């Protein structure tokens, strides 16, 4: 019989408990066989993950142009990054902008969309599928479509805006001041994957709590603020952390959109674009590796900061996952 600890089920370790169901006792597979089964993965990990990671760490301290052997230059790449590379700061600025604006917007939009989808009693599955569909569209195709429908000359969006009386609608991807907003809207349109997590979180909130709140005279906002919000904070925390990581790796949409409109102004030049440009256009693999490692450190620091704040605002029914 499993023992209950809180509402978490843990396996029984009582002496004399039935052993016929214990898989460990029945498993008599030699360790060598297990190792051989794992070997393809281990080899793949060493060759395609561990070695490249180690090599990139070493190369971040070198000048390496792909053809000549890497030349050790110590911390020069890191010095260049912070003191001698205006594109680095441009990329950081753009990346921070998209992070600061898009992450809260995505959280709010995903929560709102998920909340709406908890409401219908008829056609619920249809609506949920409908809202999730954009998330299934390949990123490149979605971005190309967006640059088309947001085209200031023949795009649908500006036609609609003009028809409702907006005289000079934005030039979206073609205007350095509006291009990132185009990307934000693209991200919100494809919110389906995040929305599903929020939907699960919302559906997990016990109905009894709403009934209790209702009996106490809480209105809809109070129900959301004092019942729903606290109970979905783990979901918000999760999507914030993954959002930060994702926004620092933001690449495909920006690369495709800037290629479509020939964004020489670099308004859609993000950190990952900078890594790509240095590695595959300037052939500066050493510098690109240094940029990648700084990205790792920045992402790690942001995640640690988020983790350190969670005690104050994230409510886990059974305590923190990260205790």
């Amino acid at each position, binding site marked *: 019989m499993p023992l209950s600890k809180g509402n978490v089920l843990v396996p029984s370790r009582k002496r004399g408990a039935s052993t016929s169901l214990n898989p460990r006792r029945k498993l008599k597979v030699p360790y060598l066989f297990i190792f051989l089964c794992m070997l393809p993965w281990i080899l793949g990990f060493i060759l395609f993950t561990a070695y490249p990671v180690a090599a990139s760490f070493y190369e971040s301290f070198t*000048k390496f*142009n*792909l*053809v*000549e052997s890497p030349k050790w230059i110590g911390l020069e790449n890191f010095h*260049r990054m912070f003191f*001698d590379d*205006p594109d680095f700061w441009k990329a950081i600025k753009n990346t921070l902008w998209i992070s600061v604006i898009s992450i809260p917007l995505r959280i709010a939009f995903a929560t709102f969309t998920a909340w709406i989808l908890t409401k219908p009693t008829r056609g619920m599955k249809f609506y949920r599928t409908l809202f999730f569909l954009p998330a299934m569209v390949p990123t490149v195709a979605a971005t190309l479509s967006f640059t088309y429908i947001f*085209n*200031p*000359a*023949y795009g649908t969006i500006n036609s609609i805006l003009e028809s409702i009386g907006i005289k000079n609608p934005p*030039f979206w991807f*073609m*205007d*350095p001041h509006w291009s990132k907003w185009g990307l934000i809207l693209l991200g919100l349109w494809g919110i389906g994957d995040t929305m599903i997590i929020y939907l699960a979180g919302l559906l997990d909130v016990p109905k009894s709590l709403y009934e209790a709140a209702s009996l106490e005279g809480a209105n809809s906002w109070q129900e959301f603020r004092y019942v729903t919000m606290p109970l979905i904070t783990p979901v918000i925390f999760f999507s914030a952390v993954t959002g930060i990581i994702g926004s620092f790796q933001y690449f495909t949409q920006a690369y495709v959109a800037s290629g479509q*409109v*020939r*964004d*020489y*102004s*670099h308004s859609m030049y993000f950190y990952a674009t900078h890594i790509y440009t240095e590695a*595959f*256009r*300037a*052939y500066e693999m050493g510098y690109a590796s240094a940029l990648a490692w700084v990205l790792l450190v920045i992402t790690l620091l942001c995640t640690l900061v988020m983790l350190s704040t969670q005690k104050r605002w994230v409510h886990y029914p059974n305590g923190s996952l990260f205790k």
Partner: protein
Amino acid sequence: MLKKRLIAIFAISALTVAGQVAVTASSEAATKTITVASPWHDGGLEIWNAAIARFEKANPGINVISKGNQDMAKSLADINAGTGPDISVANGPGNVGWFCATGAWKNLNKLINSPTTGIKIKDVFPAAVNDYTISQGNRCALPFTTEPIGMFYNKDLLLKAGFAKPPTTTEELLAYSKKLTTFDANGDIKTAGFVPWVGYNDYGFTANDLGNMFGAKWYKADGTPALGSDPQWVKAFNWQRTFIAQVFGGGDFAKGKTKLLKFVAGAGSPWGLNGDFPTGRAAIWIDAVWMIGLFCDPTENWVMMPCNKPPVNFGVAPMPVVGALKSSLYGAARYGGNTMGIGRDTKNVAEAWKLIKFLATDTQLQVDFANYATQPPSTIAALNSKDLVYPAVYKPFIDIVKNKRSGYHKIMFVAEHLDEDELNNLMAAWQAGTVSNISTALKDASANIATIIARNSK
């Protein structure tokens, strides 16, 4: 007796087999294999391979493996892995500086200058071609066909506006465009005379073209960037703004820029007949030579000949140049072309040289390829060949390639045209109105390019 006979037969057979094995082995030892990686495919690759077959026939000791559909990134990855091709072909001269300086392509100076097997490059190739195959004294590349830039103009629209001849100066270009540009009822541009906007028509008009029209220099004789010191750049950039203000904004740059941005947004694909030039949305258009294949062919198969019923009634002329320098600049252009080099790891340098020299100088290959790809040949002999077939409208491109004043800017140790990108980025900021002092901005761009070169050269 029978036994003796059998022994004799066996001995003779053994000797014969051994002899054949020895002959085969020695002939195999004498044969050298050379691999050539090129981006060609379909008909281009067939022509290329046919020429290679002729080469193999003329050089029995050399076996050539030709790999098509290989872009330079693939060849570079192979060179990096130590398994690179003996000869690789790159589209354009954008990486020549980088290939030469890193040694990805071998220095060919000694081979070219050899009195017996070398090439007298000044006699064989046009001047511009010799400019873009050398970087800082190291000639590591040989050319293969060229890619001149010229001005296409819509004859019907020009005639309608009262112009019988194309513009030859930047001043004329502005005056023509004022008359050619029309607006619809909303005030949006309906037909543009000419669009001097970086990013329009993909790479149709770049900082390189703008500088070309004003004879602006990229580098000084010592190889340091000249963007900040050559006053022609400032004139060129100011002309661009004046053009946008006067032609599209009635004298107001901001107004002209906004209208032009909307016009650019509505451009058709430059790779089809729904593009702005074939549809008459733009009357004057700057582009590379191979666009002629599209403009000549109503079926969009990019076939230049016979070009007797083109979907648009067009002409070709050299790019207009600033009036003050017309006598020295007009008719010439800064143009590039495909380049090829011998890879770092080749073990058969002599044979690779023999082949690359053949590919770069064989008149039949140059002519056949030029006729197929509509790119003018890169040798003087092929440019003058009677077998070179083209319609009359193509001739200005041949003249641009032949022009002794045509050239290419110095090629320094930068990868993938990063120097040109620097200036294109500045041009984008300038045309967007976010740069107020072009002199200072050009000096900054110059310094940035100098930094890239210095860093790479360390």
